[in-house]
Structures are given as structure tokens and as C-alpha cells.
């Protein structure tokens, strides 16, 4: 783990040295030291925005996991549901959510609802598609065991489909984590004044670049930790697979 930080540390040091050596003005590009200072000094004013962004991403992401996996089960068990929903999900998968964010804000205002919907809409299709393909790859005999016992669909899902498919589902879940963060920040940039996205824009407009970069760093740190944690959860869940 620690050795993973060596290269980024060196890069930051180089960045700092270059900024100082070339005398780059702060409003063009602040050095990492100024940014870190801003992250600490402005923490109290950024805290509410931090919580808004992180909270929305986590909530939207969890909803997307439930929705994506739940719909995958519904599609798996019912070809009618599949026929009805698959075209829409496929489209949602390739449409960048930023294209509909203005519309969502027109309907729902600049508050958190529009952003939450954007996060869910952007991140659940990839979970859905990956879960579905994992379900259809479950080995025949594993399912036949339950079919021979005439297990219900619910039992089949919890005893076999879901545990068998954790690696496949997590492929989608990890992508969804990234997409959720992108969708949330995009939403914040598009309207409203809450969240790290909105703050980045605000500070940039006032040329307060260390603060703007501080917001970017807070977003990046969250994304990295979020993604890595999911990897750890996956490893733990599949420790016996």
C-alpha cells in the first residue's frame, strides 16, 4: 500500500519544484503546497459541500446498486420484463447524463433531487448489464441443484445467482462508482451552489485557484478511496470463490 504513494508523492514534489522554479503565478497554477494549505484552511467552509457531494454520491450509488441488481433479477426471471426494459437500459448506458441534467433541473430545480436522479440514472445501467451477464453465466449444474428442489425464484436468487455473480456484479459496481461521482459533480457544475462541483466553479470565477484545486483534490481523494474500498469489499466477499 505505502509504496503505491511513492510515485504520486514524487510527482507532487516535482510539481511544487516546477511551479516555484518557473515562478508560475498562483492564479494560473498553484503548487500542491498551496492547495494542501487551502484544503486545511478552508475545510470548515467546505465541509458542508463535501458532505453534500459525498453524501449524494453514496446515496445515489447505493440506490443504483439496488436498482441495477434488482432489475437484473427481474429481467433474468421474466422475458417480458426483459423485452420491455432492455432497450431503455441500453440507451441509458450510452447517453451521457449531462445531456439531460438541464432538463432535470427545469423540472426539479437546482436542489439535490435532480442530481440524485442524474447519479442513479448514470450509474445503474452498467451495474444492471454486468449483473445480467453474470447471472446468465452461472454454471448450469449450480442452478439445476435448486431447480431439482423446486426452489422459488427468491431462493434461487439468494442461494445461487447473487453469490455466484459477485465478481461480475462488482465489475459493474466499480464502474458505477466512478460514473456516480462524475454525474454528481457534473450536476453540481450545471446548477445550484451546493457541492464541491459548484464550489470549484465559484472559486475559479474569482481566480481563487488554490481553493478551486482544493475542491478538485477532495473529489479525487474521495473517488480513489471509494474505488479502492469497493475493491476490498469485493475481495472480502469473494474470499472463498
Amino acid at each position, binding site marked *: 500500500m505505502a509504496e503505491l504513494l511513492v510515485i504520486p508523492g514524487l510527482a507532487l514534489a516535482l510539481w511544487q519544484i516546477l511551479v516555484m522554479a518557473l515562478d508560475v503565478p498562483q492564479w494560473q497554477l498553484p503548487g500542491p503546497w498551496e492547495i494542501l494549505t487551502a484544503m486545511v484552511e478552508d475545510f470548515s467552509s467546505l465541509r458542508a459541500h463535501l458532505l453534500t457531494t459525498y453524501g449524494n454520491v453514496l446515496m445515489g450509488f447505493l440506490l443504483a446498486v439496488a436498482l441495477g441488481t434488482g432489475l437484473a433479477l427481474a429481467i433474468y426471471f421474466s422475458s417480458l420484463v426483459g423485452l420491455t426494459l432492455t432497450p431503455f437500459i441500453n440507451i441509458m448506458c450510452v447517453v451521457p447524463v449531462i445531456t439531460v441534467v438541464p432538463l432535470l433541473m427545469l423540472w426539479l430545480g437546482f436542489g439535490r433531487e435532480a442530481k440524485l436522479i442524474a447519479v442513479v440514472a448514470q450509474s445503474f445501467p452498467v451495474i444492471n448489464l454486468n449483473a445480467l451477464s453474470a447471472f446468465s453465466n452461472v454454471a448450469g*449444474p*449450480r442452478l*439445476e*441443484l*435448486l*431447480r*431439482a*428442489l*423446486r*426452489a422459488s425464484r427468491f*431462493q434461487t436468487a439468494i*442461494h*445461487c445467482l447473487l*453469490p455466484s455473480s459477485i465478481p461480475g456484479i462488482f465489475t459493474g459496481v466499480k464502474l458505477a462508482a466512478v460514473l456516480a461521482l462524475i454525474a454528481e459533480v457534473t450536476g453540481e457544475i450545471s446548477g445550484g451552489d451546493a457541492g464541491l462541483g459548484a464550489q470549484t466553479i465559484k472559486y475559479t470565477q474569482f481566480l481563487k485557484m488554490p481553493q478551486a484545486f482544493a475542491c478538485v483534490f477532495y473529489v479525487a481523494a474521495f473517488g480513489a478511496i471509494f474505488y479502492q474500498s469497493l475493491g476490498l469489499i469485493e475481495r472480502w466477499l469473494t474470499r*472463498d*470463490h
Partner: protein
Amino acid sequence: MIELDKISKRFRARREEFLALSDIRLRVDDGELACVVGPSGCGKSTIIRIISDIIKPTSGRVKVDGITFDNSAPAPRETIRRMGFVFQIPNLYPWLTVRENIRLPLVVLGLKGRSWLDYADYLIGRADLSDQADLRPQSLSQGMSQRAGVVRAMVHKPDILLMDEPFGALDEGTRERMNLLFLDIWRETGMSVVFITHNIEEAVLLGQRVYVMATGPGRIVESVRVELGEREARTVEGHLFAEYVSRLNGIIGNVELEKTV
């Protein structure tokens, strides 16, 4: 009692129809252990899937304990739940312990209470898996895994056990020990058993009746009643045993011969 009456099964694969089973008549009395031997692809697994109503026959009827089902009438869930199923591979779930795997049918069938759990533990002991019960199946040998698969199929006290080449992947020594152990457990339970194998010695050792199958289309060419004496029933070395084996080999040889002519 299990009775297959004029069962046929056609599979359709890429526009081509092909007859996997033709005119299968087979009968297993209560408490009887019937073996089905035949070459790879003759439709042995398909027969078992039809009995357990996982796939539908194209024509013909299945009768289990007086209940008839066919391609229009599905088997009642209760009838199928009186069956146990042993697969060609152990088919244990890697995320459950050995004990949890063996108890899984109890969970699915909603059989609760101390006595069921005790019976599961009894079977675990009977299969000599007590020391491994709380391990994951990955740490089991092939023989142990397959024993776990066998007792899992028995844990809900089924009347009928359907076994699809359960010991086919094991080496000969292990298989023989498994056969003898299985015979002992089976005698305690009095289940009717359909035991699929491609090994003639195994069929003679286990079966009270042996159905011999052939391919192209999959069909039963002969059924042989096996009566080994009390003494010979526990070994593969006796004189009578050898006689049955050579008789069955003869039947299979004749089928092969007819095919080449």
C-alpha cells in the same frame, strides 16, 4: 415406484432435430437400486432430467408413486421434492461450508428443527466428513466432495435418489470404497435409486437391475436382473460377479458389432 413409459426426447439444435431418446421403458420398484449403463451421449443424463421434470419428454409419460406427468402436465412440486439429485460433478457451493452445503436442501424446503439438523450431522458422520464439516469445499479431496454431494441429496430424506455418474471422476480404489459406503447408507434408508454410470463393474456391484443403453438413437437394449449372493455382494472379485460383467460386456459388444455391420 418410478415408471418411464415410451419416453422419447428430441433436441433441436440449430435447425437440426435429433433424437436423443427413443422408446425408453424403465421401471424402478420401491426400494430398488437400478443402474443405467451406456456409452457417452446415449442420453443417460437426459433420462434423469426427465424423471426430475427439469426437461420435458417429447412424448411418453413418467409415473412416480402413482403421479403421472408428461410434456403437457408438469409434475407436482411435492413429487419432485421427494427426490434427491447427485450430479456428475460434486457441485458444492464454494461460498458455503461443507455443512451448510449439505443443509442447503433443508433450508430450501423449509425443513426446520433440531431433528433435521441432527440428521444432517448424522449423514456428515456417515460420509466421514465430520472433521471437514466447517471447512469450505475447496479444501476437500475429490472423493470427499463427492461424498458431500451424495449426502446432500439425502438430507431431506427423499424416497427417490437420482444419481448421474456420481463417482465417474474418481480413481478406481476410491470409487470402490464409495460404492460400498453408498450401498450401506442406501440399505439404511430404503430409497429407490436410479444410478447412472458408464462403468459395468460399478453397475453390477450396485444394481439389482441393470439397464443397458446404446446410442443412435439413445435407447435401452436390455435389462438384466442382478442377483449376487450375500457374500459376493460386497466385493468385485467373486465368480458370479465376473459372470455378470462378461454378460453385460457381451450385450454392449453385440450392439457395437451391429452398428459396424
